[in-house]
């Protein structure tokens, strides 16, 4: 398949174009802008047929997608950071209304202090909303996940919004070679969106009713159940996509050199490239190190992680976010899953890359050195560490 070199944002725009949404509603925010600018150009040039709504806020971007999706239209939006938090109320609503809206999040931190650079504070803040969350490591993976997301979200057993997370600047503004599937092949892969229930005067329905205590739990349970079912359906969609388009990413997680690994580094998103390179280097020094990438964060791939970490002695979890007053989101989720499963694997949490601070191989090495030290001591004496933090006054 032909590969073209382009910005991550443009790769996403090409993916969206091939999914042919009826309605795109978006509001500009750095570093998402190149995605929506490119889509605007596609629409202006007649290369895309959808209606593009230049909304006055992210709140309305998601709200317009709610209206359009409820009318039976395929929709797309993109945002990040402050914009995603402004949307938060509507994301919960879209999930509760079971609307398969697809969005791309150009991950950026959340102020104050205001900062346009990357971390995962934004998407982690909406992780409990009932929106499926995928995280891409490369532009190719983000492109593929965008197409896959429609098929996942629109599955009649799921019917939940889906969010593809791509690291702001690190992916959005970086040029990489990508292979773009043909529109025809995407059409074969992705059936037309024709929901069973939609707003239509021919068959009027009432959507968004009051849920009293006697019904609310059941309706919430159905959302929970859809998330549970998606754990089966998502890998099937990945597999079908891989077969149709010649890719090799099929799992909810990706294991990298974990077979004989004593220490595993676990994270998500673009940082995994640096993690894998560091693993390669350390392996040359004879260190038994591997890595695990989480590709699907909601639903949380609990079973896959428990299995993958069964014979591992130490897990270093790299979080590009911090729940102030607790720890990193990924670490907390993983710890709960592992401990509940009876695992006694040693764990530590490394916070790095906040607000665009570069995560270098030496940052990763520091986490590994710490992990090796604690493994040797047989004791986790520092469960959480901010990597690369400057000392006071320096």
């Amino acid at each position: 398949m032909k590969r073209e070199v382009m910005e991550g944002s443009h790769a996403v725009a090409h993916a969206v174009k091939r999914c042919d949404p009826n309605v795109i509603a978006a509001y500009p925010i750095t570093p998402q802008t190149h995605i929506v600018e490119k889509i605007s150009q596609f629409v202006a040039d007649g290369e895309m047929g959808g209606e593009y709504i230049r909304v006055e806020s992210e709140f309305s971007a998601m709200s317009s997608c709610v209206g359009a999706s409820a009318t039976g239209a395929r929709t797309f939006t993109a945002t990040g950071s402050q914009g995603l938090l402004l949307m938060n109320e509507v994301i919960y609503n879209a999930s509760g209304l079971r609307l398969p809206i697809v969005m791309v999040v150009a991950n950026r931190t959340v102020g104050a202090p205001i900062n346009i650079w990357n971390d995962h504070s934004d998407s982690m803040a909406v992780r409990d909303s009932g929106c499926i969350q995928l995280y891409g490591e490369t532009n190719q993976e983000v492109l593929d996940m965008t197409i896959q997301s429609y098929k996942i979200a629109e599955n009649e057993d799921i019917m939940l919004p889906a969010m593809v997370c791509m690291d702001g600047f690190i992916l959005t503004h970086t040029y990489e070679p990508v292979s773009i599937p043909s529109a025809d092949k995407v059409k074969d892969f992705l059936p037309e969106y024709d929901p069973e229930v939609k707003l239509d005067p021919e068959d009027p329905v009432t959507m968004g009713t009051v849920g009293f205590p006697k019904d609310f739990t059941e309706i919430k349970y159905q959302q929970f159940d859809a998330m549970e079912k998606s754990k089966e359906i998502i890998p099937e969609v990945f597999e079908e996509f891989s077969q149709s388009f010649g890719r090799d990413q099929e799992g909810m997680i990706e294991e990298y050199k974990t077979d004989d690994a004593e220490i595993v580094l676990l994270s998500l998103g673009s940082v995994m490239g640096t993690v894998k390179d560091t693993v390669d280097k350390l392996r040359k020094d004879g260190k038994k190190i591997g890595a695990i990438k989480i590709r699907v964060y909601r639903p949380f791939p609990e079973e896959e992680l428990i299995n993958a970490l069964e014979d591992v002695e130490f897990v270093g979890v790299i979080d590009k976010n911090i729940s102030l007053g607790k720890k990193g989101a990924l670490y907390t989720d993983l710890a709960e899953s592992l401990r509940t499963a009876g695992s006694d694997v040693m764990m530590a949490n490394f916070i790095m890359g906040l607000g665009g601070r570069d995560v270098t191989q030496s940052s990763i090495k520091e986490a590994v050195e710490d992990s090796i030290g604690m493994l040797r001591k047989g004791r986790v004496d520092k469960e959480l560490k901010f990597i690369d933090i400057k000392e006071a006054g320096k």
Partner: protein
Amino acid sequence: MTRLKEDEYFTSGHRACAGCGLALGARLATKATGGNVISTCSTGCLEVVSSPYPQSSWEIPWIHSLFENSASVASGIEAALKSMGKDDTEVVGMGGDGATADIGMRGLSGMFERGHDVAYLCFDNEAYMNTGIQRSGSTPLNASTTTSPPGEYSFGNDRPKKDLLEIAVAHGLDYVAPASIAYTEDLIEKVEKAIDVDGPSYIQIHTPCPTGWGFPEDKTIEIAKLAVETGLFVLYERVKGDIKNVKKIDDRKPVKEYLKTQKRFKHLFKKEEGEKEIEKIQEIANYNANKFSLDSNEYLDERTKE
């Protein structure tokens, strides 16, 4: 006298209070749609009384999403219909006065400015009734609400009602009109016109609330009429910006006659200083009378000048 169409799209069995002006407004307004319409609704009384799961009063496709996004959801529906080649289906956005004047203003302004073909209906009962009668931007001067109570240092709401109609006009809308549930045919005609407009339009329907305003439930229409007859709620149309079809008042009544019917203004009649406050409200009516050349009666013009 024309007969109302028999088709009902907001049906009986809803949970609105007896004498609810809003319920009547919704019933009349949806009659005007003819049924080939999709409607949005903000959070508030209308949503709560009409859609207790698994029941619904709506015979038209209807969606409630959130408090502040009725107009934005409607924008999306309109775009979806356009994209799917179903332009013949109309879109109506509904919201209460708080959802429209306050929390949903941004989305409404966006919908207006982008030119979506949506008729937006604001049901104006002049406070946040669903949460227990709190002040909104549309609450009139000196009205008592649970967050603007009168007290030793207060006569209630200390600001005049926000003029949403002028805000709509300022967006360059082709059709903007206030309507009242007391003037049924006028209301239906205006909603029909708003829907016929190719682009955004705005109707503000004055819907007295017996529970929130404090009056007997059989007085709703009477009080709605008094608001018009005193010049506090003026009926007119703004067609491409021009003021048209002002409902002239033959013998404009003093605002006192309106105020004394409602508990929310009761405090104004209890203190001597209340008289001054009533005068301020009278000045609002006089301003309206002047702005819209409301009085068809010379004598009254003289009297209100005093």
